[in-house]
C-alpha cells in the first residue's frame, strides 16, 4: 500500500503550551482553542473541515467523544472517529487522516488531542485502576505495580541485563532533551540545564528509573490538519507530506510482550520505511515518544539507528540535541515539555512539522528534509511510526 506520493500533507498545526494549571478550563475548551489555531495556521475556514479524528479525553466521559467534540466545535464532518492507542493515538490520528484524505473521503481532516490533568485523580488508587485492564487488576495489581512506571522499569532492567546498558547512558537522553528544551519557550521545564549527575541524583521512583527519567503529566492540547496538497492551493505554509506510516501492536501489559527489549516499533518502522520508499539513513531528525528515557533508547535501536543492544553506546556517542548529528526530540520531548495527556504524543508531530517548515527558531536543525515521528502507547504496546517530509 502506498500513499500517493506528496499529495497527502499536514497543512496546519497548533499546540497550546503545556501547563500544570489549566485555570479551570475543560478538555473541550483546550481542544477548541487548538482547533481554532490550527485552522488559522492552515489558512482554512472552519467550514472546510470535513473530517474529525480525536484522541480520547483524559478525564471526561469517553462516551460518544467524537460527537461531544463535534458538538462543541459545531462541525458536521463526513467522517469522524476516536482513535484509542494510548500514547500512539495522536500519531495514529495523523496516519488515519492521511488514509481518509488519500482515499478521497475527506478533504481536510482535523486531528485533535489533549486533556486536563487532575493531580487529585492521577496519583490515587482509582487513578491507577482507570488505566488498567481487568487482567491487570486481577493478576498484577495485587503485587503492587506502579502502572506504566513499573512496566518501563522492567524493560530498562532487562535491557541492562542483556546488553550492559548503564544508568548514565539512559540519563543522557534526558540531558540532551533538556538542552533542546532550553531553546523552547513553551517547554514546562526549560529553566536550567541538566547533567547526567542531576538525573541520577534525582529520587529513584521505580528502580532503575529516576524521577527525571519519567514524564510529568500536565494539561494541554494540540491539533493537526491533514489535507490533499492539490486541493487547498492557498496554504499559508509549505505543506508537509505524510510520506508513509507503519503501525504494529503486540501486547497490552508488558507481562505478555513477546520480548521486553525488542519492541513492535521495529515492525512499525519497517512498514513506514517501505511505504515511504526511504531508509533509515535518509532520516534527518527524529521525534520519538519519550514517556521514559528507556523508551527513546529502545526506539532508536528498533528503528535501526544502531544495532539491538548498542543503544546505550550510541546515545553516549551521539549528540541528540538540535546541534547534533541525530537531532532527537528537539522541542525537549515530553520529558522536558510535560506530557499534556494524549497531546503529548502530538507534540512530536508538531515539532517535526516546525523543523521541516524551517520555523523552529533557535533550535532549528540544518538538515530538515525528512523526519521520523513515533507514537508509543501502553508499555511499548502500540506503535505508530510516521515519516514526514518537506517537498
Amino acid at each position, binding site marked *: 500500500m502506498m500513499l500517493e506520493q506528496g499529495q497527502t500533507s499536514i497543512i496546519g498545526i497548533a499546540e497550546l503550551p503545556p501547563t500544570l494549571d489549566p485555570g479551570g478550563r475543560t478538555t473541550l475548551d483546550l481542544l477548541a482553542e487548538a482547533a481554532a489555531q490550527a485552522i488559522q495556521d492552515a489558512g482554512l475556514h472552519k467550514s472546510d473541515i470535513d473530517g474529525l479524528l480525536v484522541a480520547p479525553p483524559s478525564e471526561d466521559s469517553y462516551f460518544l467523544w467524537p460527537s461531544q467534540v463535534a458538538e462543541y466545535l459545531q462541525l458536521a464532518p463526513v467522517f469522524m472517529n476516536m482513535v484509542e492507542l494510548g500514547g500512539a493515538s495522536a500519531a495514529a490520528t495523523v496516519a488515519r487522516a492521511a488514509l481518509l484524505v488519500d482515499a478521497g473521503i475527506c478533504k481536510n481532516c482535523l486531528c485533535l488531542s489533549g486533556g486536563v490533568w487532575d493531580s487529585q485523580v492521577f496519583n490515587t488508587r482509582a487513578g491507577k485502576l482507570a488505566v488498567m485492564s481487568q487482567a491487570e487488576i486481577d493478576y498484577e495489581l495485587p503485587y*503492587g505495580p506502579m502502572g506504566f512506571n513499573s512496566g518501563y522499569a522492567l524493560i530498562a532492567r532487562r535491557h541492562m541485563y542483556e546488553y550492559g546498558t548503564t544508568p548514565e547512558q539512559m540519563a543522557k537522553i534526558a540531558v540532551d532533551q533538556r538542552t533542546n528544551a532550553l531553546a523552547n519557550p513553551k517547554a514546562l521545564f526549560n529553566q536550567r540545564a541538566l547533567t547526567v549527575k542531576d538525573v541520577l541524583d534525582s529520587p529513584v521512583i521505580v528502580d532503575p528509573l529516576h524521577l527525571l527519567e519519567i514524564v510529568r503529566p500536565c494539561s494541554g492540547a494540540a491539533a493537526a490538519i491533514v489535507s490533499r496538497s492539490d486541493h487547498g492551493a492557498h496554504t499559508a505554509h509549505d505543506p508537509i507530506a505524510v510520506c508513509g506510516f507503519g503501525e504494529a501492536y503486540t501486547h497490552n501489559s508488558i507481562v505478555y510482550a513477546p520480548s521486553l527489549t525488542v519492541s513492535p516499533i521495529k515492525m512499525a518502522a519497517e512498514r513506514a520505511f517501505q511505504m515511504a520508499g526511504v531508509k533509515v539513513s535518509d532520516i534527518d531528525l527524529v521525534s520519538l515518544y519519550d514517556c521514559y528515557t528507556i523508551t527513546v533508547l529502545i526506539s532508536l535501536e528498533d528503528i535501526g539507528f544502531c544495532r539491538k543492544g548498542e543503544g546505550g553506546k550510541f546515545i553516549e556517542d551521539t549528540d541528540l540535541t538540535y546541534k547534533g548529528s541525530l537531532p532527537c526530540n528537539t522541542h525537549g520531548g515530553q520529558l522536558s515539555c510535560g506530557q499534556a495527556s494524549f497531546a503529548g504524543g502530538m507534540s512530536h508531530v508538531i515539532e517535526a512539522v516546525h523543523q521541516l517548515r524551517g520555523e523552529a527558531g533557535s533550535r532549528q536543525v540544518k538538515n530538515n528534509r525528512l523526519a521520523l515521528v513515533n507514537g508509543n502507547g501502553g508499555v511499548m504496546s502500540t506503535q505508530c511510526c510516521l515519516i514526514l517530509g518537506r517537498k
Partner: protein
Amino acid sequence: MSDYKQIYYDKMAAVHLWLQYCPTCHVFIFYPRERCPYCLQADLEWKPVSGKGILYSYTIVYVSALPEFKDKTPYIYALIELEEGLRMPSNLIDCPLEEVHVGMPVKLTHIEKEGKTLPVFKPGDAKAVIR
C-alpha cells in the same frame, strides 16, 4: 469453564500453582480465561506447574501510589519466567535488595492477601533451569 478465576484461587489456596494448559497447542496459559489465545478453543485443562523459574526482570518500587503498598516500600515487583516457558507477574520476597538480579533462580511460595492465597516467589536453588 467460566469459573476459571475461582479455580485458580482454589488451587492456590491448597498451596500450589495450577495453570491452564492447551492440549492442542501444548502450551501453558497465563492469565486464566475461557479460551486458548492461540487456537481459540475452549478446552483448556488445569495442570500443576513446578513452581520453579527465573527472575526475568524486576523493579524495586520505592514510591507507590497504592495505599496498601505505601508502607511496604521498597519492594520487588517481579516478572517471573516459569520453567514451563511462560511469564507471570509476582513479587520476589525474602530476598535482600542487594542480592536481587535478573536471571536468578526463584521458587514458588505464597502469601495471604484480602482473603486470597497469592503465588509469590523467593530465591530458589542455583541449579534450577536458567535460560
